[in-house]
């Protein structure tokens, strides 16, 4: 997946997790938590969804890497580069 595809995929997952949030204005370099009503269970759901969709393993100590869109995409890029987008 390209960086743009990974971003799209994350937006897709966020849509499921926070159906009431408007994601069109999401700023990539600002923490998710400052823009969206996400709690730690929501981040866990992102991790579980990524594992389900792409079998990527994100160890617990790396959960902090999912703080913003920019960091998430940067973190996932090497893990997903050989993976095709499914949805």
């Amino acid at each position: 997946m390209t960086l743009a595809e990974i971003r799209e995929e994350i937006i897709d997952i966020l849509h499921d997790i926070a159906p009431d949030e408007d994601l069109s204005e999401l700023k990539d370099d600002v923490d998710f938590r400052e823009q969206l009503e996400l709690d730690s269970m929501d981040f866990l759901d992102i991790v579980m969804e990524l594992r389900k969709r792409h079998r990527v393993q994100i160890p617990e100590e790396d959960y902090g890497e999912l703080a913003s869109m920019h960091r998430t995409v940067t973190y996932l890029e090497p893990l997903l580069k050989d993976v095709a987008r499914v949805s």
Partner: protein
Amino acid sequence: MPRDFLQGVQSEYDVVVIGSGLAGLTCANTLGRAGYSVLLVEQHYKLGGMATWFKRPGGHIFDISLHGFPVGMIKSCRRYWTREIADSIIQLKNIRFDNPMFSLTTTFDREDFTRLLTERFQLEPSTVHEFFDHVRSMNFYDDQATTTRQLFDRFFPGREDVIRLLMEPITYANGSTLEDPALSYGIVFSNFMSKGVFTFEGGTDRLIGLMQKDLVKNGVDPRIRCNAENIMVHRGQVTGVQVNGRMIRTRAVVSNANLKSTILNLVGQEHLDRGFVNETSAVRLNNSSTQVYMALKEDERIDESTGDLLFSSTAPLFRTDALLSRDVTSRTYSFYYPRTRPTGRPRCLVVSSTNANYSDWAGLSSEDYEASKKDLVETTLVAIEKYLPNLRDRLDHVEAATPLTFKHYTRHVHGSSFGTKFEGLAVSRSLPEQVRGLFHAGSVGIIMSGWLGAINYGVIVANGVDAMLSKVETQSSDVANLVTEV
């Protein structure tokens, strides 16, 4: 021949979940939905653990632990269970306090508490805002050195009345005290303050029934009257569980049984580090409870103005030891109206709860125990007169539960109502490092208890199980690839 409750069971599963409390149920459901084969074994004759109920002649149904939970339950039930379950969660708007310091009614949310604290308790609005923001920002990995007492002293020095308003309900909700880490108070308090107190329409029986339906739909095999006797370990890896005398092989075990009995009894200490065993033995349990269940005659009604939840006390000050004492001065009453079960038979019930020490009840002779139970009922009927005059004459049924009752039905060490103190969380989390494939999910660390905490912890642990099992699969398919390449 006795009935075989394991009839038709497979000889092997991906996961065996021991215990059907809300954490066990939710963990099993999450893993079943993810495609694993899951066996859920429960020693009692009903699913639900502490989330339970019982029926008495005359159409009365008593709920044990349905007094209120935070709004977060809606989201968790929608995501990890079903829309139907989530849509049945409704607010309890009438929360009352009555003690020698104050009597008031509130919706128990930030807005209403801000009003009360500034207008009635005459606190500076800026202090109140700062307090709310501070507790809301607390995380479970934050500083644990600050106690709840220190937190209150910082924001509201000398204000015993304010401390009582802020603390008493949370002590009832999770057994936490002024001496526990402030974050275990702050996280739970903030969860409630976000929108108030909620309940499940239709009662615990309906909730567990709906959960059971969803479990089966997701391929989980739930079995009641199945006692897990032993968790089998070979070379640091879980291999199976012995249930009702039968061996069932598995790659992963999630124990929803009490943390201490899981580690110290079900596993066997020879499979664990000495240090870990010591750490487990040192984990403190939360207190137990007593309850008195009162059912009104079928044509008797309680006026709605009596409220949904009433925190009542005759103690001059709020003190943890007074809350636990056999000499009861504080009681929480839950009033159930026909609207609790809109499609059931219209009934009014009251459940009076107190926090209690197991040791105060455990050593009694059977006559003394029966006499103490009778006394508990009697003193409760006297105390409740203030709110419901002549209740005694309007009752169809009354009975009591003690710490021994809770222990009997859930096998919790000392009948603990809300799991362990804070240190139990770290022990629960590190169990898989001791034995590969072995997990614990259940009330621990104060913050992972209560209906919401237990459900969320079930999901957190399911994530760990899924990570482990899918890693094993990836690894073995890697090996398969290697083999074919060669």
